[in-house]
């Protein structure tokens, strides 16, 4: 019961952010970049739900505006990593042999570095831009995706019903398309949620360091970075954006946990181990 409760909370939080981010593209209460020097560092009020920053910009509008970018950058990164990694891992496991070895060596090289470090190195070469951030984030996550989809296909290949299809005369393409891929969806979707949560955190850390999505675009991490000078006088500038990130990531994690419990527990635990 608690588990499904967590899933409902998680799904609602995810839905809320999706809605807020989409809505912010059409409308925000204030212009997120419009300065109002007469309304600097105002505490939260009815007019400004989350207060205003040092230039009098409405923090709530800025958070909404940042949500769209942060979620989009993270989502595209996860999507790209899945699109690249899942078929590669599945094919490597299915084919085996040299191709499999090559793929494994590649993932091992990338996984020899902590993810944030690799992203920093890539960004240091390319310089910060939206595309560079997305590419760096997805490249750093691809090996994990490859490992999980490879492991899923490997364990499925051992399943007797796959052998039984073999006995029944199934072709290679039938085995791959009808038997292996549908059964990989469970571990991969669980992986996607945990990857999404991790990437949101890394992306906001990058923005915090000023190495992520370049200014003037507001992102969650950039908002927090800006708030540092005003910790004493305007604590709301730190409190709200941080709480927003936390709620988004908690939502995704809870949703991912519920997903894992609902899907085949054995496959899901495998994904957890590898992620």
């Amino acid at each position: 019961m608690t588990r499904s409760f967590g899933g409902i909370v998680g799904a609602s939080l995810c839905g809320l952010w999706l809605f807020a981010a989409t809505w912010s593209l059409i409308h925000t209460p204030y212009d997120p970049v419009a300065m109002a020097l007469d309304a600097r560092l105002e505490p939260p009020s009815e007019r400004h739900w989350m207060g205003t920053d040092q230039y009098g910009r409405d923090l709530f509008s800025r958070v909404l505006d940042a949500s769209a970018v942060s979620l989009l950058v993270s989502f595209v990164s996860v999507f790209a990593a899945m699109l690249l990694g899942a078929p590669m891992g599945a094919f490597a496991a299915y084919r085996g042999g040299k191709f499999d070895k090559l793929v494994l060596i590649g993932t091992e090289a990338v996984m020899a570095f902590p993810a944030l470090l690799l992203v920093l190195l890539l960004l240091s070469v390319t310089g910060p831009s939206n595309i560079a951030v997305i590419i760096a984030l997805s490249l750093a996550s691809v090996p994990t995706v490859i490992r999980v989809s490879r492991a899923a296909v490997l364990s499925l290949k051992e399943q007797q019903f796959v052998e039984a299809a073999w006995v029944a005369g199934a072709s290679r393409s039938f085995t791959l398309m009808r038997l292996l891929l549908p059964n990989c969806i469970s571990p991969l979707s669980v992986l996607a949620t945990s990857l999404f949560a991790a990437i949101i955190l890394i992306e906001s850390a990058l923005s915090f360091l000023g190495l992520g999505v370049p200014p003037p675009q507001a992102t969650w991490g950039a908002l927090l970075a800006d708030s540092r000078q005003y910790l004493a006088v305007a604590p709301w500038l730190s409190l709200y954006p941080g709480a927003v990130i936390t709620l988004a990531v908690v939502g995704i994690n809870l949703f991912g946990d519920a997903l894992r419990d609902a899907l085949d527990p054995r496959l899901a635990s495998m994904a957890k181990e590898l992620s």
Partner: protein
Amino acid sequence: MTEALADEPAVPATGSETIVDICDLSIAFGDAEPTVNGVSFTVRAGETAALIGESGSGKTLLAKSLLGLLPKGAHIVRGDVQLLNQRVSSLSSNEHRQLRGRQLGIVLQEPLTSLNPALTVGSQLIEAQELHLGISREQAFESARAMLIRVGVDEAESRLRQHPHEFSGGMRQRIMIAAMALLRPRLLIADEPTTAVDAVLQRSVMTLLAEITTEIDASLLLVSHDLGVVLEAADTVHVMQRGRLVESGSAERTLGRPRHAYTRQLLESLPRKRSPVSVAMDRSSSKQYLCATGLAVSFPGRRLLPWRKPAPVPALRPTDIHVGPGEVLSVVGESGSGKTTLGRALTGLTPVSEGQLRLEGREIGSDRANRKNELVSQLQFVFQDPFSSLNPRWTVADIIAEPLIHMGVNPSTTESRVVLAMKDCGLEARYASRFPHELSGGQRQRVGIARALVVEPSIVVADEPVSALDLTVQAQILALMGRLQRDRGFSLIFISHDLAVVESLTDRVAVMREGRIVEEGTGSDVFDHASHPYTQSLLDASPVLGEHSDGEFSLEARRYTPRAIPQDFQPAVLNRHAAGTGLRYLPLTETHRVLVGKATASSRGDRTTASGFSSRMPLSSD
């Protein structure tokens, strides 16, 4: 509530003390229908009581409730248990815990997983002694050493410092028994103690249990589905079916003259001795349908260091075997004997490292992927595990239709053939749209058989098709396979770890050990004239049930007369002929061959000896 058929009193009242008194006990998971329902029986001092039932009968749950170790969610709804005149319901969980080990012991079913892999065997033997007996570590170590020797573990002193993974399954079983015996409980519960043990070791485990319980003056509660074991060991028997106790009484009476229909059904499900007039002897003619020559399989070994070449691990050593048209060939051996590998290699599921396969004299490739459709459909396989061999996302009809779809059979023909196959395999039409998880184990195995037969194969390889099933279901599936084989006339290669199971079904038998066939012959050759020591030990381990004309049952030892090995084929002579290991097949009759030669002690420390192998002398029938 229906009263169990019980003798009053169950055992002659010799005034012996009652150890356990179970009274109208019901156990349920949550609010569900009780899994154990109104069960009453007693176990007296010194008695060996057997609790018999199939899976789902509630017997294990009942045993765990005595220990106060019910799984999560299970609770006692009604009734009570008296342990040594203490009512369990009046005990606190801590008081109940103190009875465990001290008064009540248990030996679990699975020896491989029942000892903690992270701790030494010694510390696991010592910890409970320190707790219950209040003796010093040194004393506990000393008695652990003595007990280990008693249960048959050599070099006990050094072995106490080893970890469980350094022991074989049989040894770990003995260690588990030792751990409990050290505490001298009044009642020892043995939960399926022989199920996970190879056939030839079962008897020694039972003997040890019987001896130990006598020595420490404990009663034994034997929880088992294996009637053969129960028949030999038990004083009293309690039969459970779906949570209820259906019959209780002395072993002799209950199993000799069963009153309840279910007890009778259980007994009748036991594998029988072959009727003397065996089925169609002409089938096991010299005609060869599928024939393998020098078939061998080895798996790549582990590379220990990068520059060392991994040595291949042989799973099947070069083997000649054939099956005639419409013939039933049984391949029997314990786990690791290579029997499954042989079956898989014959079907093309496992790549062959050397040797040839011929079907009707024409050579066929050993890689299934390169075979033509007709050939693929001629050779079908029935899997052991009825759970994982069916795609969980497909319906029964989809699963059975799969081979036809791959063959490109048109949809209307497919449908009619699926319907027919289901009917033949005893599956009602309404199951067509069900998913595998909605079926029982037996039904699932029927689906597996229907899938193999829907393409009308000429050869079916069945890999332990009944070993995952309950006794009564096992008998039904065996009967089904026998009937289908007779009706459709396909050749059947039946792989089993249990020699007794195949007896009623088979035309010829091949007994395997350590990747080789050690004896091969017709049913009568092998069952009546077993000549290899390993075959003999298998037969000794499986007594037969005799059914008398008056409806009574009795357990009889197997009788067989080994064929004499001629003087000029004695190993000593052989060694002069065959270079190297000096092992050959010796044809005893035209149909009966046995592996002879210098006996080498088995590496696993089991009692029987196996023969090594180098050259082959195939049965010269062609």
